[in-house]
């Protein structure tokens, strides 16, 4: 029941949220809340709500932290993962969730993203990837497709875009996945897997921004943009059954990489033991 979820996990005094009508961010925030609820309620996991810390940076996406009723910190632009690194290393028992955007985590915060992935420090990064800087009114971001328009790409964007999940995987992230605003159930499952994963996990969730990205690029209404996700982003079970020909132009919804490496704070605990034995 959505209304129960709101009362349980959202700070209703601080709603309604600031996002535009048709924005995909609300769906993704709900996916995160459902994932947390299911892990809190799961007797085998027994996630402690009081140990969950939600960290965000700056941008439309990052307002989500303040709406979620957990310990939350809305930090500076690009630095969410670096703040989260300090939180996790200082107190490894905390379950650290980073809510960020395409600009926040792959442009101004790109360095922290790749290094947290490389360290394999235990945190779950959920990107609200809407292909645009929405908060400032529609400038091109590192995920804006080549040729698309933005207020700062009036003649078409000549940059090549990042695939954030692949970027994180390339930097060594031990769990990477792709979700979308349309694929709420699949995305929720991926976020749950990310939280359960011992190490750095990133779920790149495609949002929709009808107000800026959609309007500038004639992508239609919010439902039409979600329809595009339905038709072009394919859940894993179906995606892997498709021929190479059928896969052309389609994007996987599901896990990209899932490997096990030593987690950073656990390695640090061993380092402390070594240092103290030597003393």
């Amino acid at each position, binding site marked *: 029941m959505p209304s129960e979820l709101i009362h349980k996990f959202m700070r209703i005094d601080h709603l309604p949220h600031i996002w535009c009508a048709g924005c995909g961010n609300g769906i993704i925030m709900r996916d995160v809340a459902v994932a947390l609820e299911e892990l809190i309620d799961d007797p085998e996991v027994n996630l402690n709500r009081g140990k969950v810390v939600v960290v965000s940076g700056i941008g439309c996406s990052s307002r989500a932290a303040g709406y979620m009723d957990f310990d939350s*910190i809305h930090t500076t632009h690009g630095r969410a993962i670096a703040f989260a690194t300090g939180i996790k290393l200082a107190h490894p028992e905390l379950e650290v969730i980073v809510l960020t955007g395409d600009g926040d985590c792959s442009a101004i915060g790109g*360095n922290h993203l790749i290094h947290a992935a490389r360290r394999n420090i235990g945190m779950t990064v959920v990107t609200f990837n809407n292909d645009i800087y929405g908060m400032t009114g529609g400038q091109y971001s590192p995920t804006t497709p080549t040729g698309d328009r933005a207020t700062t790409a009036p003649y078409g964007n000549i940059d090549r875009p990042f695939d954030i999940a692949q970027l994180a995987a390339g930097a060594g992230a031990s769990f990477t996945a792709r979700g979308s605003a349309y694929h709420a159930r699949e995305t929720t499952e991926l976020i749950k897997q990310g939280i359960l994963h011992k190490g750095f996990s990133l779920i790149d969730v495609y949002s929709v921004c009808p107000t800026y990205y959609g309007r500038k690029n004639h992508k239609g209404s919010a439902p039409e943009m979600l329809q595009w996700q339905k038709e072009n982003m394919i859940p894993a079970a179906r995606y892997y059954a498709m021929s190479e020909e059928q896969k052309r132009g389609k994007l996987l919804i599901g896990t990209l990489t899932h490997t096990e490496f030593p987690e950073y704070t656990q390695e640090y605990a061993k380092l402390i033991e070594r240092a103290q034995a030597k003393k």
Partner: protein
Amino acid sequence: MPEKKAVLMQGNEACVEGAIAAGMRFYAGYPITPSTEIAEQCAVRLPQVGGKFIQMEDELGSMAAVLGASVTGVKAMTATSGPGFSLKQENIGYGCLAEIPCVVVDVQRTGPSTGLPTSPAQGDYMQARWGTHGDHPVIALSPSSVQETYTLIIRAFNLSEKYRTPVIFLMDEIVGHMREGVVLPSPAELIINKRHISYRDGANKQCYFVPEGAYVPAMKPFGQGERYNITGLAHDVSGFPTGSNAVAGDLFTRLMEKIDHNLDDIVRVEEFMLDDADTAVVCFGGTARAAMSAVLEARAAGMKVGMFRPITVWPFPAAQLRARLAGLKRVLMVEHNYGQMLLEVQRVAAEKLPVGFLGRIDGTVISPADILKKLREMEA
């Protein structure tokens, strides 16, 4: 319990040992000359005492990680030098607004940009106060010896916890790389402030609530079930963003007043041979070593010279200096820059007496002879 003991130590090393004595258990940093020994020493020492050290990917990230660690209730520190201090400014401002205690060490080196990385200077004095955007106060302390580095960094942590603000520990290459004998106090002698984590009597559920007569909120660390919000936006007592000019104005004013109304507690100076002096040498940090020698030589030559040294360099000890001016005929500001604290001294002197200046920006040190020469010129 270990008793006090005498050791030979470098300034940067004393900074680490003092910080650990103050309870620092988290360090995030990035290698930069001439502060690198602080990171190296933290990498060795922190795990030994159960603390955490991390070498971050950059200066911005290390400042962010320090703030992140601090919101979980751990005393945290970073250290850097000029270029890195510039990069840390944004998150220092965040710490000031969000009221997150931490200590930021800046071991100053010479020049703008990359400058002269291994040479001494004091050119970040104004940056320590005005480096970030917007109006907010800053506490900055500056040690002049290895011994003082040890005790003053403890005070930096204490002030940081008490006023819930980043404290700048403004060292310079002279003190950072100086080696001298230090007497380490026994732990029983130290006064260590703990973070105030609750005003609540059950009635008030607002994390940024500040009771009448107090200046600082008292939030519990993250992870204790409080479920509150921290933001760099202007916020109300609940910690949530506000669009109200009145609420934002009250917040920004309280941030200023929590420092401005507690100057007696925060500001410390050293006054040396000033009681019968007609001339005061004003200096801070490593420069004081040459100044003190110059004062002694001047006294030996029959000149009535003393030294006024701000230990708390921000807020500037205006009242303390003003109280001294009545008996003086002249003031000489000596600092390793082009005239930064000079502006504060001139402001306080308000043209009532001559303020001379001796500065240097070429990476060499000002000697006692340089100061003595300048004193003679001023008396002539």
